[in-house]
């Protein structure tokens, strides 16, 4: 469904993504992990058309999409959320989600109805008439998700939607994400919350300093010594493997 092939991007002298490849199969939840500054968000920006790759190809559903504008890619059925949430603060939650719904729905009333439906799916039905600016961080993260979902994507890119949430909220949102997948939406997610990665992912990619250093099932990947060292520095592999088990993963 999504094929990223040897994609590179640099900002001035900084190589943010270098020669990275990644494949997402239809119906899967694939996760992308890596330490801070690894280039994960940059890769999302490249896939969703916010940045142009310096090199490499990106294909979605068999068509090349590198070079298309974000709104065109969204209409093809690939939508991203933002790690730094970007709500329309002066609009209500309902109006926020309806903006997403309008991608497929011309009528105002139908879009607002669809917004209520999507809000119910993402657990926001009680907040529909609140201004988005009044939401807590957890609410804003859900709104990012709801708005993107309202565009009826085939592939949803979630950038750290669990960050900053407490344990209960994380557990709820894991359920929501799984429901979305079960409804037929393929998902690629960036996540630091390992509990979510382990529970949700069918497949995991690890990015470090712009390079894809490992891939496999989440269990395989988290045990791989190169991954552990990428996170915690040389020599830390052994200690972390034990800590991971103690964590109950």
């Amino acid at each position: 469904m999504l094929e990223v092939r040897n994609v590179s991007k640099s900002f001035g002298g900084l190589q943010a993504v270098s020669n990275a490849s990644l494949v997402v199969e239809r119906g899967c939840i694939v996760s992308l992990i890596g330490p801070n500054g690894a280039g994960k968000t940059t890769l999302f920006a490249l896939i969703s058309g916010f940045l142009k790759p310096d090199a490499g190809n990106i294909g979605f559903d068999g068509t090349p999409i590198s070079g298309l504008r974000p709104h065109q890619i969204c209409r093809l059925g690939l939508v991203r959320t933002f790690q730094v949430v970007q709500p329309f603060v002066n609009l209500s939650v309902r109006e926020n989600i309806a903006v997403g719904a309008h991608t497929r729905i011309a009528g105002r009333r139908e879009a607002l109805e669809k917004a209520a439906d999507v809000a119910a799916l993402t657990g926001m039905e009680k907040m529909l008439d609140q201004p988005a600016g009044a939401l807590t961080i957890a609410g804003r993260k859900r709104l990012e998700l709801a708005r993107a979902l309202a565009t009826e994507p085939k592939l949803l890119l979630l950038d750290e939607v669990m960050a900053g949430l407490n344990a209960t909220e994380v557990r709820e949102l894991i359920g929501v994400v799984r429901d979305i997948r079960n409804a037929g939406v393929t998902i690629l997610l960036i996540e630091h919350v390992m509990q979510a990665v382990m529970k949700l992912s069918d497949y995991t990619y690890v990015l470090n300093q712009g390079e894809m250093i490992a891939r496999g099932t989440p269990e395989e990947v988290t045990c791989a010594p190169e991954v552990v060292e990428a996170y915690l520095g040389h020599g830390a592999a052994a200690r972390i493997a034990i800590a991971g088990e103690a964590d109950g993963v």
Partner: protein
Amino acid sequence: MSDRVRMTGWALLLLIFAAVPAFISSARWIDFLELTLFVAVLGQGWNILGGYGGQYSFGNAVFFGTGAYIQALLQYKLGIGPWAAMWFAVAGTVVVGAFIGYLSFRYGLRGSYFALITLAFSEAFLVLSRSLKSLTEGGRGVQLPLNQDPAQALAAFQFNFSDPFLRSYGFYYTILIILIVACALTWWMERSRFGAQLVAVRENEEAAEALGISAFRVKMGAICLAAAISAMAGIYYVQKFLYIEPGIAYGTGKSVEALFAPIIGGLGTVAGPLLGSFFIHGIGEIAKETLGRAMGDRPGIDLILFGSILILVLAFLPRGLAGLLESVCKRIGGGRDA
């Protein structure tokens, strides 16, 4: 406020405006009303792009002036009737709007850059209308001939020699109808996909793009609509005064009036420009009557007053008079207004 309350308010307002001849006959007060409605139309043109779209123009005179000049020149040079010229005036202004929009939005100009480029365009048109003498008659302006045949008053879109009612109220109703069209367009826009997308672009362009909105196309739509509405104000102006010259058409005066009204009245609201225009010109009249009389005829005193009002509104009423009205209505309506 619910839609029903709003609709009732608008219907009442419309009734009052339509019935004005029944209780106002003083030419001076009709002039005052015409000016107020005229500025409200200019303001609505600005409000579409600035209030709903967040693109603050400092040169909306370019639309007013172009509409006015096309309306005047088609009659003056080619002898085309005013009712036919009107369509060309609107269409031609929309083309100018699309051109300015294309140059600005294609290259992602926002904020003060957009304000500056619109100002630059209105200044360029000012210079051009002064220097292209063979086309525009230059600084002398275009004076349309008076039509003295009472039977042709409507056909000529001139009411100086028509029956007494039309002579007194013809242009009042003209600008009222234009304002109704402008407000209806805005009302429709507010409840359409286009309006929702325009507001989304104002709020956060990046997020809007991510959700499938072409910010470029939406802003192009807004600038064309803004141009069309401002052009209608130009058409009214030319038919009423049968005269247009570069300073009136493209001077910064119209650009400033166009943005004052909606900012004071309430950005991104249908009623904002009308409220703001009434407030500004109402205060202006009162100032002339009282301060002017007390302190003698000192020019500029109304400008000081306008400036102070603008500062006060910006400081204390971020959502303008419309926002104030809404919260007052909510308080009065209590829980009823669900």
